[in-house]
């Protein structure tokens, strides 16, 4: 028999929005809960809009975060500006709260590197979205090492999906974080699917959180569709790391309601019944039911919120579409701090190629 490890699992609100245990003290602040709700709705509407922009050819491939809004919004609400986010590619909600602009997110998925240049100084040190799976976990450990070397009370937060926990990079990151007691929080968005591979055949361990045990620090599970639970446990993890008490691994159990990306078709491998069930447990409906039951939300406020979000989205799309093309030289300007003189002839070749393409006469 395998060793049994009982890890903490935290849930406050059930799928119907009913408390299953007394909520933490901070959750009596309805202004805060309402802010979380608004941000989750904004994230979802922006996400849906972004998928629609891809379907109409106005951006390229996009990785939607439908159904996982509670995770990003809880994390983004708690991180301090001086903390550093080392995200992966399904972090739209989190990035928006960090200070990445909607038009920058559209620009990145719209095929332009300036979408990762982040104009807001609050995100100047955040990493761009990481595409090669799990590698970001190690970068976060490097960022956390820098904090530790300098004696700064800052935290590196890194996110990944359930598939990423199978990679050596993830395990090497947990190992070094434990060995060096780094101020880093690992958040696994366990949305049950790594493209077409379900969680049950991704890993033989009953939980992903228990991988932290082997690295010598705490791992725990949380209901990733319950924003109260994610907020509460992430707040504890963040504080712990900030105080120099070492890393934490938080496995947030959620569900990828959308496709892996807009280039994927999840109906090829996923039973409709399972998706239908997951829609019953999604995070926005749950918090809404709780707020309504508490007399803190109603239909008119909902309508006003949606109108307000739509106005923001419209402005963002206009801003995105007003951004012109990068000049050809930009493809070379940032490869090195200064393009090496020894490669100067390649600069001329690039400019000549750009000139031909602009003239409509493609020679290649």
């Amino acid at each position: 028999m395998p060793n049994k490890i009982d890890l903490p699992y935290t849930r406050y609100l059930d799928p119907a929005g009913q408390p299953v245990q007394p909520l933490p003290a901070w959750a009596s602040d309805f202004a805060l809960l309402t802010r979380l709700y608004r941000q989750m709705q904004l994230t979802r509407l922006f996400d849906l809009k972004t998928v629609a922009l891809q379907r109409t050819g106005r951006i390229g491939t996009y990785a939607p975060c439908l159904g996982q809004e509670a995770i990003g919004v809880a994390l983004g609400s708690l991180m301090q500006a001086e903390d550093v986010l080392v995200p992966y590619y399904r972090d739209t909600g989190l990035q928006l709260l960090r200070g990445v602009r909607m038009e920058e997110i559209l620009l990145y998925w719209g095929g332009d590197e300036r979408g990762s240049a982040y104009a807001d100084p609050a995100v100047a040190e955040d990493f761009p979205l990481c595409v090669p799976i799990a590698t970001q976990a190690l970068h976060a450990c490097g960022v956390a090492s820098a904090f530790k070397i300098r004696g700064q009370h800052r935290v590196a937060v890194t996110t990944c999906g359930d598939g990423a926990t199978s990679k050596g990079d993830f395990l090497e990151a947990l190992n070094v974080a434990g060995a060096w007691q780094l101020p880093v929080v690992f958040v696994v968005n366990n949305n049950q699917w790594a493209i077409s591979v379900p969680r049950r055949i991704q890993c033989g361990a009953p939980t992903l959180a228990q991988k932290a045990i082997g690295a010598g620090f705490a791992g725990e599970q949380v209901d990733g569709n319950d924003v109260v639970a994610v907020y509460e446990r992430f707040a504890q993890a963040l504080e712990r790391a900030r105080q120099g008490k070492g890393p934490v691994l938080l496995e947030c159990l959620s569900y990828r309601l959308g496709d892996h990306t807009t280039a994927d078709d999840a109906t090829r491998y996923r039973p409709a019944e399972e998706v239908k069930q997951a829609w019953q447990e999604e995070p926005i409906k749950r918090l809404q039911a709780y707020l309504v039951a508490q007399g803190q939300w109603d239909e008119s406020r909902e309508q006003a919120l949606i109108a307000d979000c739509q106005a923001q989205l419209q402005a963002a799309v206009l801003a995105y579409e007003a951004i012109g093309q990068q000049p050809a030289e930009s493809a070379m300007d940032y490869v090195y701090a200064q393009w090496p003189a020894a490669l100067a002839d390649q600069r001329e070749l690039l400019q000549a190629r750009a000139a031909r393409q602009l003239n409509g006469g493609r020679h290649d």
Partner: protein
Amino acid sequence: MTEQKKITLLEAVNLALHRAMLEDANVVMLGEDIGVNGGVFRATQGLRERFGFKRVLDTPLAEAMIAGVSVGMAAQGLKPVMEIQFLGFIYAAMEHLVSHASRLRNRTRGRLSCPLVVRSPMGAGIRAPEHHSESTEALFAHIPGLRVLVPSSPARAYGLLLAAIDDPDPVIFLEPTRLYRMNPQVVVDDGRRLPLDSCFTLREGQDITLISWGGSVHETLQAAAQLEQRGVSVEVIDVACIKPLDLDTLEASVRKTGRAVIIHEAPRSCGVGAEIAASLYERALLDLQAPIVRVTAPDIPPPLYRLEQLYIPAVEDILAACDSTLNYA
């Protein structure tokens, strides 16, 4: 350190690392066994004692981790100098070097950058175990955004390593183990940097250009001395900076001599010698008196040590190639 004392390439690396850590508090070192043990070759000896465990980190045994952590540190403005114990163990770290270190500046339009240095011993010839003798500089030279350096003397190791650590971009700094304790020379610890985009002309001549780098520079200089005794005027160039290549210097030399032999320890196919030869044909075809010849390892893995001398281009191989080039119609 007295100014007249001769030191080895290994000691020159150590001297440069001490100097870099002294000059810039952002320089940190990390790798396997580099701290208390001073590195398996002793390249980092004394650093931990002098600069402390916060700046000289003995890491867990995980190469991808060393590279990934270095990327994170560098993005934070530190200057990590990471050691991979032998070049044959670097492949686990490749994803971080190729997909992240080399691209972070470009991906963020300059918002973040990655000024790290990878130090790793390279090459055969020290009767080391399996996977300790590789020369894979071409793998790195192929990657946009990286710089690749291979010193072949104590003075060039010192000046190039300091320049590599200063450089705002990721640099792969490969140290030929065969030369670690060979040919000591006086190195003045004056902090002078060498340029990162220049070849070094080690001797000037009129009849033929020998182009080499790394461990093979040793045999190339021996071959040149023998040719000189036979009355052949030989120019020897240590490429040293593998990426980007100083093709102007190479072109000027070959235009002058009309004949070139390229000598490198790495396997022939798609080696850096192929890049140099192709570039010289593009630039100086009509000045060539003979085809360019390459003297390299064959396309085989480095043999275990009983046969490793078969792998390394010998003086006789270089002389034979020079003869065929000089005697070409």
